[in-house]
């Protein structure tokens, strides 16, 4: 055990390593308030590693995870330090949470260790000109912008309102994730000449969101764009019902509004809500035949190992790991940060090449978003009968969006129907 560790620490070339495993650091919130999705995301990556291991592994060796618990951003940094200096990791895979990712990647860049981000979306993560950081998933700004574009291109015409007359209310939790999505949405809306009547941020740990509900009620918005973690998103919807706050469209932007808990908690009252996320279940015609097979294998293996079909977060973990293990590391030839960097920059997967439908091409170091997968994009889905269906953009869409949202009174009387 000690010998293996020493060998790792001393050698740069895995070709010389006597160890039989390829060790990859995994930094996620495995405990604490974000543990649920942290673990779920990691589980997706585990399946990707399993799939590679079953086919003989990487360079003939099995992939093994070395876990670090990023329970909060500070701990994420110290765990990252530990993974690098004590465990000798040359590559850290993470992180689900933007604040943890931002903090921990400072450590890896300083140490010239690769940071592979699969699912934290805040833009600033790839706006620091880092050379050793790569992110496979889309950015928060895209979520906010898509929400506004959808409101303008689809919701307004359906309601028969001029987009510039439509009243938009924006709410977001006040950490890096929520603030990035929410402020980008607000800016984009204003640039389009649309009316943002109220923008409210709040702490996701709050036990009461009635001030937000009441401020929104006072403004009578047509559309709400929300960025919430789980507990605050659920609380808001409950309090919105208690206060009889009605809007014509409610657009979530990842996290809460895409999670199975949304449907589990609210049953029929979860329906008609929109959510933006990298989407599983896009129009299969967009996927390449190889990717369709990969999707099926992933879903089957995940269900077998973890007892449920993978949703967005697990799939993000999977895609991040899959691109790393099947496209980048084989090309790099060894677990060396310089080799991995160069290999990552040559990756060029076209649209339809990942299970989300988007391709992979990382921005070079000179680009303002160095390390970002420029082809990543989310899609917009709607809850219909407590299942999520992709409805926008049109080429990814599988069903038509249902607009407007029924009022609480209509829901209470059961006056909601799913006309296709």
């Amino acid at each position: 055990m000690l010998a293996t560790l020493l060998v790792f620490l001393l050698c740069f070339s895995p070709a010389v390593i006597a160890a039989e495993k390829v060790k990859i650091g995994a930094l996620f919130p495995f405990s604490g308030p974000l543990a649920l999705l942290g673990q779920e995301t990691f589980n997706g990556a585990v399946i990707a590693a399993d799939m590679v291991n079953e086919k003989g592994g990487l360079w003939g060796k099995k992939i093994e995870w070395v876990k670090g618990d990023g329970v909060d951003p500070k701990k994420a940094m110290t765990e990252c330090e530990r993974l690098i200096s004590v465990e000798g990791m040359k590559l850290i895979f993470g992180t689900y949470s933007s604040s943890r990712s931002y903090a921990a990647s400072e450590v890896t860049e300083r140490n010239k260790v690769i940071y592979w981000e699969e699912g934290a979306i805040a833009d600033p993560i790839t706006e620091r000109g880092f050379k050793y950081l790569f992110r496979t998933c889309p950015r928060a700004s895209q979520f906010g912008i898509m929400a506004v574009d959808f409101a303008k291109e689809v919701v307004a015409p359906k309601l028969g309102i001029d987009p510039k007359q439509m009243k938009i209310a924006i709410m977001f939790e006040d950490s890096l994730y929520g603030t990035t999505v929410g402020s980008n949405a607000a800016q984009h809306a204003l640039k389009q000449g649309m009316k943002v009547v109220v923008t409210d941020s709040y702490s996701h740990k709050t036990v009461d969101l009635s001030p937000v509900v009441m401020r929104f009620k006072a403004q009578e918005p047509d559309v709400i764009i929300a960025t919430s973690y789980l507990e605050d998103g659920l609380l808001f919807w409950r309090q919105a019902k208690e206060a009889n706050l009605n809007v014509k469209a409610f657009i979530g932007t990842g996290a809460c509004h895409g999670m199975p808990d949304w449907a589990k908690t609210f049953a029929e009252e979860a329906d008609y809500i929109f959510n933006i996320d990298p989407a599983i279940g896009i129009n299969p015609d967009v996927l390449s035949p190889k990717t369709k097979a990969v999707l099926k294998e992933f879903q089957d293996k995940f269900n077998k190992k973890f007892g449920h079909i993978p949703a967005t977060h697990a799939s993000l973990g999977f895609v991040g790991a899959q691109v790393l293990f099947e496209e980048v590391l084989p090309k790099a030839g060894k677990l060396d940060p310089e080799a991995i960097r160069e290999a990552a920059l040559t990756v060029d997967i076209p649209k339809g090449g990942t299970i989300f439908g988007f391709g992979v091409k990382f921005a070079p170091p000179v680009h303002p978003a160095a390390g970002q997968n420029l082809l990543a994009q989310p899609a917009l889905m709607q809850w219909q009968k407590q299942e999520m269906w992709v409805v926008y953009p049109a080429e990814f869409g599988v069903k038509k969006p249902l607009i407007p949202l029924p009022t609480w009174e209509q829901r209470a009387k059961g006056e909601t129907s799913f006309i296709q």
Partner: protein
Amino acid sequence: MIATLMQLIINGLLLGGIYALISIGLTLIFGVVEIINFAHGEFLMLSMYASFWLFQLYGVDPYLSLFMVIPAFFVIGWATQRIIIQPIIHAPPLNQIFATVGVSLVLQNAALFFWKADYRTVRTVYSTLSLKTGGLMISFPRLVAFVLALGIVAALLIFLKRTYTGKAIRALAQEKRAAMLMGIDIYRIYKVAFGIGIACVGAAGAILIPIYYAFPTVGGLFVLIAFVVVILGGYNSLVGALIGGLIIGVVEAFSGFFLSPHLKEAVYFVIFILILLLRPAGLFGRA
């Protein structure tokens, strides 16, 4: 505008009722046992889970579960005092703080280990029921929390004034040595007081589960507010905990609406600091 103000007052009072409910037990323990119970929030978390499991596994309505939860948590409080607090009752305050913080961490992580980080809630017929009167919306479960908070304070006040044990508790809180000289078994009274304090927070958990969610770190959210309420109301004052809770609730509702939801927590922490500077004994405490 009047309607909005009325609604804000109602929202604030109902929220304050929840805060008061959680703070009643804390102020009793603070005032009688003279221990800062940093694990108070975790006992709340445990009782929320208890009510959740009773509902999930046996279909017991949370309000009915009160009959089981209150006695059970009295016993838990009694045991905690006997096993963990008693041995360190004469230790330096720092050691006592470490002990209760330790209990808090153990309970949080045990909950995470056994029940995972999922959010648990109870969906009953009345969970999102709202009573509408004259344009105002009153959340039913929050109204129940408010009424029960009043009820528990009233019941405790009667207990403290009229029963022998109650008087013994007050005597102990007033002057420990004199109480011992009067023949009161203070170690037994400590256990009773701690037991009552935890029974109160146990009741709070059962009342809270239809409104909010149980997860391992939920205690932390509420206990911070409970400390503010206890200091504002004056420690060892039950009426103080009630009035303090209501004030904090109303302040939060108004500042959230008129200032920004972003700042509402900051406002009551500013009040907290002002109280400590200007009137450290709190509104109803003895100086």
